[in-house]
């Protein structure tokens, strides 16, 4: 509970203006806390007279923290391919492991996964735990969750990182629940706190409107899912040495209750949005699905992929897999061209790490221009066809 010392409170209102949740109000010269308080502690930090405090009672259930050591990366693979985020996490995990002075291990679960363990070593893993079993051929929450939980119980890592992908966000919460420990979703920044070696996990919330840094103080492992395309992989080094440890698990653990009858890869586009170098995106300003024909044409001319804002997806002009932003995909292409997108923060968080951002919008005050390398105020239906024509000529020349 947030405690307010009414003797000390001078009713200055600093807490009220700091609270991002509108939970604290000064009434009759004293701060009063309401139902929406999330106990984030922002007000405690700003109170100049020390009138606010959060009573944190010591947890009764605690892990013996010193028993847990090492950084693990869950190396996702599907349909015989390693997910790019696995390599990104090895890059991030390497830094954390070095700061902690512990080894970095990868966990590889699947069937027919020869050669992948070597690849994980080349990208920074000191050890790779491999469970290669036909029961893991398709992803199921039960089998994957049980396997990772069993390995973690046995080897006790202090940190587990997994991609915030469909697979990671589906089964990692089961692992955290089984291990009775904390989990932070969709992190965009990870660091080690100097004082105590705690993992500082930073993530966006409220559709990207605020960032929160979260710790898991009393239990281990500390588990994060990490947004793809945010962390950088190390350069591949085929000469790196590492240890590959093949694990045999109790077959009962790998028996899923959910049966995967069919696994379909949908060819959404000629170019995969998350991996494209050039992305052309459309928003509400395109007015209807016909507007997207123009976006697709520009993307085709440039050899890029098509993306969309949530407004365009919600309007039904283009399917969800094209959505970029907090509730869609994160992209980091060389060039991002935003056409008729106003730039709500929930969109900006998904694309602002692009190298070059072009924004075309009728409204000069649109927030998209705040992140634009080059901004054009104008009518997308005039500008985009001109761009298409220019780049077509270039192609022919």
């Amino acid at each position, binding site marked *: 509970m947030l405690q307010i010392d009414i003797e000390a409170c001078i009713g200055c209102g600093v807490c009220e203006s700091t609270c991002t949740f509108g939970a604290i109000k000064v009434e009759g010269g004293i701060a009063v806390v309401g139902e929406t308080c999330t106990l984030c502690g922002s007000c405690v930090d700003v109170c100049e007279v020390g009138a606010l405090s959060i009573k944190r009672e010591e947890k009764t259930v605690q892990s013996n923290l010193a028993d847990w050591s090492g950084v693990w990366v869950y190396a996702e693979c599907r349909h015989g391919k390693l997910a790019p985020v696995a390599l990104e996490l090895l890059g991030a995990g390497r830094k954390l492991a070095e700061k902690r002075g512990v080894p970095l291990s990868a966990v590889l679960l699947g069937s027919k996964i020869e050669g992948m363990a070597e690849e994980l070593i080349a990208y920074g893993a000191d050890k790779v735990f491999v469970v290669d079993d036909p029961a893991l051929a398709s992803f199921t*929450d039960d089998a994957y969750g049980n396997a990772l939980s069993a390995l973690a119980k046995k080897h006790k890592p202090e940190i587990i990182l997994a991609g915030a992908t469909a697979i990671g966000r589906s089964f990692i919460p089961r692992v955290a629940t089984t291990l009775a420990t904390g989990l932070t979703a969709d992190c965009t920044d990870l660091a080690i706190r100097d004082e105590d070696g705690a993992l500082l996990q930073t993530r966006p919330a409220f559709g990207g409107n605020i960032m929160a840094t979260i710790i898991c103080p009393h239990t281990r492992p500390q588990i994060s899912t990490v947004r793809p395309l945010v962390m950088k992989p190390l350069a591949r080094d085929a000469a790196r040495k590492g240890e590959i440890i093949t694990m045999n698990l109790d077959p009962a653990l790998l028996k899923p209750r959910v049966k995967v009858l069919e696994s379909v890869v949908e060819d959404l586009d000629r170019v995969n949005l998350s991996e494209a170098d050039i992305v052309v995106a459309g928003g509400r300003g395109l007015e209807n699905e016909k507007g997207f024909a123009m976006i697709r044409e520009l993307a085709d001319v440039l050899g890029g992929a098509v993306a969309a804002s949530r407004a365009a997806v919600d309007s039904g002009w283009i399917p969800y897999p094209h959505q970029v932003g907090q509730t869609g995909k994160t992209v980091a292409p060389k060039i991002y061209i935003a056409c008729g997108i106003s730039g709500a923060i929930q969109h900006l968080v998904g694309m602002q790490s692009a190298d070059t951002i072009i924004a075309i919008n009728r409204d000069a005050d649109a927030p998209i221009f*705040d992140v634009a390398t080059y901004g054009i105020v104008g009518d997308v239906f005039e500008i985009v066809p001109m761009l298409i024509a220019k780049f077509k000529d270039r192609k022919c020349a």
Partner: protein
Amino acid sequence: MKIIVCVKQVPDAKDVRLDPKTNTLSREGVQAIMNPYDRHALEEAVRLKEQHGGTVTVLSMGPPQAEEMLREAVSCGADEAVLVSDRAFAGADTWATTYTLAMAIKKIDDFDLILCGKQAIDGDTAQVGPGLAERLDIPFVAYVRKINDCTASTIRAERLMDDGYDLVEVPLPALFTVVKEINEPRIPSLKGKMKAKKIDITKLTAVDIEADLEQLGLKGSTTQVVKVFSPELRGERSMLAGTASEQVAQLYAKLSPLL
């Protein structure tokens, strides 16, 4: 078929704006709404009930004012509504939330299916659905975009994956989280609105659900927020000038070397 739908009342995140002067979230005029993904979970439950018979119970953990949202859920087709509300729940992370919901569901007793939205638009964690399934030790499927077939003992459904979709078969009882593509939620009927006005909402406290107080709220949480701050946006903003064709020519010149 007995279906429980977990719903959350959230601030309408798309209207939450950052005040550039004070650097705080401006909540003026921001409404408390039913989490949009939960609306699709509710709609799917009501459709299953219409096709196969049974009941739909909506369950929410939240402050007393969440009652309003539960009434709205009843007007959209839910038969019963349960609000789990207690000051002891404040500051709960997803671990403490799944504990609370699991204890409440044990009180509600038997069910065949639990549906949740894929995530709430305030926290965006997507962790409560899978965590709750583990607490209840039932099968779980995330990102369900279509329920193809449903019998008394199994459901066939499609789950959205990053590269396509999987067709899965799941024994009941089970828990699914759903995506928006699954359906188009209905608007409340007049009859539904009448029912919503009159319905007695079951209210449960921490004591009612026989919860271990150590596991609740901030005290029962495994994670702790240590800092909240505004996201940093890149501040480039360089505008091209001139007529439309001049601007296009400038842009072409800038982009050409990058291609």
